[in-house]
C-alpha cells in the first residue's frame, strides 16, 4: 500500500523524510532503509533543502522505489523555472513516482551558494497548478501531453504561523490548486493543533499529517525556537529535555506522547516524521506513539 491508498483508507498515515547525500556516498541512505521499510507509508525526499547543493530528489526517489518504498518527490520553485519543473515532474512520472510535495523553497541567500540566482518562477501554489494540469494531460500553457501524469499532490502548512489567518488563506489556495494532503511544520503542542484545526475546519476533506521532529537535546530546542520559523518548543518541554539523563530517548518519548494525544483528540490524519538523519529512531517513535 502506498501513500495514496493509505490516505484513502482512513488509517493513521505515517510518512518519513530523507535527504539526498551531499556527494555520491549512499551509505547513510541505505542504512536508513531497514528502519523505514514496512513501517511508513511513504518517504519524502527533500529538494536541495535549505538551498544547499546535494544529489537531486528525483534520483533518490527512484532508488526508494527500487527498495520497495513509496517516495514523495519534494519540488521547490527556487531552482527551476516552469519549463524545468514540468519536465522534472514528467520525468518523475516516467520513473514511477506517484507523489509530489510542492514547496516554494528557502531563498538561495540562506544556502551554501548564496550568490546563486533565485528563480521562483513558480511558487508552491503554481507548482501544484502545473502538476494538476499534467495530471489532466496538459501542460501549464495548455499544450496537450502524450500521456498524462497521475500524481497525488501535497503541500506544506505551518500551524504556528503568525498571523494564522494568512496561513489558512494560503492553504486554501493550495487546495484550490490541487493539494489533497498537507504535511505540517514541526509541532510540539497539542494546543497549537487545536487552534489550527479550528481555523481550518471549513476546508473539508484534506488530510493533515502533523510534522514531528524529535528533539535530541535542550540545545536543539532552543536553537529551533530562536532560528526556525514556525517552530515553537514550549518551555516545559525544554525543561524536560534539559533534565533528562538520556535526552534522545526523552525526545522520542515526548514525540510519541504528543502523537498519541493528537490522535486521541482526532486532530490529525497522521504524521510526517522528520528525523534529520536519525531515521533509526523511527521505529522507537512509532512504538512510543502506540503505532508500532
Amino acid at each position, binding site marked *: 500500500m502506498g501513500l495514496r491508498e493509505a490516505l484513502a483508507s482512513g488509517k493513521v498515515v505515517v510518512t518519513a523524510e530523507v535527504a539526498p547525500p551531499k556527494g555520491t556516498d549512499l551509505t547513510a541512505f541505505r542504512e536508513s532503509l531497514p528502519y523505514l521499510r514496512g513501517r511508513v507509508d511513504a518517504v519524502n525526499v527533500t529538494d536541495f533543502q535549505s538551498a544547499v547543493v546535494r544529489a537531486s530528489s528525483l534520483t533518490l526517489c527512484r532508488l526508494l522505489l527500487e527498495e520497495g518504498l513509496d517516495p514523495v518527490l519534494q519540488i521547490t520553485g527556487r531552482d527551476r523555472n*516552469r519549463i524545468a519543473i514540468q519536465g522534472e515532474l514528467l520525468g518523475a512520472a516516467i520513473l514511477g513516482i506517484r507523489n509530489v510535495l510542492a514547496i516554494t523553497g*528557502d531563498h538561495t*541567500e540562506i544556502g551554501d551558494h548564496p550568490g546563486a540566482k*533565485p528563480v521562483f518562477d513558480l*511558487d508552491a501554489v*503554481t507548482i501544484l497548478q502545473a502538476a494538476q494540469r499534467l495530471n489532466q494531460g496538459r501542460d501549464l500553457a495548455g499544450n496537450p501531453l502524450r500521456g498524462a501524469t497521475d500524481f497525488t499532490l501535497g503541500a506544506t502548512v505551518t500551524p504556528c*504561523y503568525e498571523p494564522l489567518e494568512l496561513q489558512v488563506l*494560503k492553504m486554501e489556495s493550495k487546495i484550490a490548486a490541487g493539494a489533497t494532503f498537507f504535511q505540517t511544520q514541526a509541532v510540539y503542542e497539542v494546543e497549537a493543533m487545536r487552534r489550527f484545526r479550528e481555523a481550518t475546519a471549513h476546508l473539508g476533506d484534506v488530510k493533515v499529517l502533523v510534522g514531528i521532529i524529535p528533539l535530541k537535546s535542550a540545545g536543539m530546542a532552543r536553537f529551533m525556537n530562536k532560528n526556525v*520559523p514556525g517552530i515553537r518548543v514550549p518551555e516545559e518541554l525544554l525543561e524536560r529535555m534539559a533534565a533528562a539523563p538520556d535526552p534522545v530517548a526523552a525526545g522520542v518519548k515526548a514525540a510519541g506522547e504528543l502523537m498519541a494525544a493528537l490522535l486521541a483528540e482526532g486532530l490529525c490524519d497522521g504524521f510526517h516524521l522528520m528525523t534529520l538523519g536519525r531515521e533509526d529512531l523511527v521505529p522507537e517513535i512509532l512504538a512510543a506513539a502506540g503505532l508500532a
Partner: protein
Amino acid sequence: MIIAKQKELAEILQMLEGKQRIFLTGCSQCATTCKFGGEEEVARMAAALKDAGKEITGTVILDPSCISLKVKKDLRRAPGLQEAEAILVLACGDGCQTVAGNTRLPVYPANDTLFIGEVERVGRFKEVCRACGSCELGWTGGICPVTRCAKGLLNGPCGGSRDGKCEVDPELDCAWILIYEALKERGELDKLRQVRLPRDHRKARRLAIN
C-alpha cells in the same frame, strides 16, 4: 526615483587607468536629490581625481542625463569636453548609457545603480518597484510583492517569516504580512482567495515603446 551609490574610488581609478584627461557629468534629477551626481558630488569627485593625479577638463550637470536629445545638445556645447580622453558619469545606469550613446569618447560609470525606490528620509531609500511591466498593486493593498517579497511571490507568503520579518533579511518586513495587514484593514482579504497565475515575464522585457 532611481537610487544609486558611488563606487569605491579605487574601482573608479582602475576603470580610468591610462586615461589622464577626464570630463565629468552629473545629473540634475534623481542623482542630485539622492546625492550621487549633483553639483556637490561632481565637485568632490573632481577633487578626488585631481588628488589621484588626473586632469579634469570640465564638468557639466546634465538636465537630466536620461533625455537623449537634450544630452546630445548639452554635450555639444560643454566646455572642456573636446580636450577629454574619457567621460566619467555620475548618474544612474540610464544616464550613463544616454551619455555613452551621444559621444565617441569612452564612458565610465561612477555609480552602481541599485533600484527604483522611495526616499524615506535623507540618505535612506527603500526599493519599491522592479518595473515588472504588469503592475499588481491593485490587489495588494498598495504594497509590491514583486519587489518587496524577496521571492517575488504572488500567492501569499512563504513559510520563512519570523516575527513579521523576511527570512532573507531580518531588517526587512515580510511583504506578505504587510499586504495581509493592509488588505485586512481595508476589508479586502478576499483578494487573497484568488490563485494568481505565474507571471508573463515577457512583459518585463519590453526594450522600447513608442
